[in-house]
């Protein structure tokens, strides 16, 4: 169990805010980001914080842009999601983003804030740089504003067949599992499929069409580790591939960014160990 103490697991102090590459390096013409407009704070606001937010309107012919919103912190809750809701209610009702539970369990409001992925509902505004930057999840096709198209990563999730598979005829009552066997799922079953890890993985940036990515692989291990499952071999067959599994180079941006404190990197290492074990 992980209790979220701060809105990040390790201090985010770094020498560089971003890699020293041109802003639009290798970017297709439709993805180039332009300058947007500034929405100044309302008169009378005392504590003001600027948010630079990625905007994209699919109904116009315009490219994505970066709008600046000045948020009145005395009128707004403590989390980045509160700021987004405040902007939508008070400044620009067209600002679009996914949100539901506002307590870190639904995984809807995953986005790239100040250069790392997290849930907007569990990141404190006070932890954000000035100006704060909010982008949709990195390396995703964007439907509108902060709403990414997750079709492909969910298709990759479907590929690992995330359900219990058995051959033994269904028992009259439950399928028994010892407490020890059950505990092997701890740290894996809690995944909320926010795709913070997959979106933050450089290997998935360059080979996302073939590499399954940390989220799908962590889920794959959750079923490999399940003592009740009877399809371990078939599951490993699906995974053992130079791209699907072995494109993971243990960069560990995934473990670094998981807002649930899970460890996709460790899960992938366990899969690699299983594949090796059945060959030697």
């Amino acid at each position, binding site marked *: 169990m992980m209790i979220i103490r701060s809105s990040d697991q390790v201090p985010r102090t*770094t020498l560089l805010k971003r890699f020293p590459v041109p802003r639009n*390096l290798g970017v297709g013409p439709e993805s180039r980001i332009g300058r947007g407009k500034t929405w100044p704070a309302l008169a009378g606001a005392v504590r003001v914080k600027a948010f630079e937010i990625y905007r994209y309107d699919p109904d116009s012919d315009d490219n994505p842009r970066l709008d600046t919103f000045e948020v009145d912190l005395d009128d707004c809750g403590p989390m980045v999601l509160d700021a987004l809701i405040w902007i939508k209610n008070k400044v620009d009702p067209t600002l679009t983003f996914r949100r539901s539970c506002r307590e870190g369990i639904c995984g809807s409001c995953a986005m790239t804030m100040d250069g790392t992925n997290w849930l907007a509902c569990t990141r404190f505004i006070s932890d954000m740089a000035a100006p704060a930057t909010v982008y949709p999840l990195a390396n*995703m096709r964007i439907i509108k504003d902060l709403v990414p198209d997750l079709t492909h990563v969910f298709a990759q999730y479907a590929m690992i067949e995330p359900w219990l598979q058995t051959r033994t005829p269904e028992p009259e009552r439950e399928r028994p599992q010892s407490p020890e066997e059950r505990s092997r799922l701890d740290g894996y079953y809690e995944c909320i499929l926010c795709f913070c890890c997959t979106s933050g993985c450089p290997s998935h*940036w360059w080979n996302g069409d073939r590499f399954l990515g940390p989220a799908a692989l962590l889920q794959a291990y959750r079923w490999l580790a399940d003592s009740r499952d009877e399809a371990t071999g078939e599951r490993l067959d699906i995974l053992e591939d130079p791209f699907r599994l072995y494109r993971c180079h243990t960069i560990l*941006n995934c473990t670094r960014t998981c807002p649930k404190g899970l460890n996709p990197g460790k899960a992938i290492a366990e899969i690699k160990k299983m594949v090796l074990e059945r060959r030697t």
Partner: protein
Amino acid sequence: MMPTSPAKRPRPLSPNIQIYRPQLTSVLSIANRISGVVLSLGAVVLVIWLLAAAAGPEAYAVVQGALASWLGQVVLFGCTFAFFLHLCGGIRHLVWDMGYGYELSLIYASGWAVVAGSVALTVLAWIASLLLGD
């Protein structure tokens, strides 16, 4: 999901490396890769050096002279640092591949250990080389 009509332009791709924060995890990963590529080029120098030694004292003297030059020393220093970085980083990867060291605190501790270790070993190697060379 709504089907995209062919007339519509493709959806933009949200930025990745352009905005994602460099952190110890990704920086050491790319450093391990770059040092590996540098060492591949160093391996070419190694073969040239052996071929020159096999060819005779004259050829060997030419290669030794090139390596002793200002540029040669810079290349050798770069190769030394790349070697120790790749060595320390590689050992860190081997430990990970055995399934250990994945706690975030250990990932950061081992990462900084790799940085400190490779710098220290490079300096030590060059001090030893300079002392023996005189």
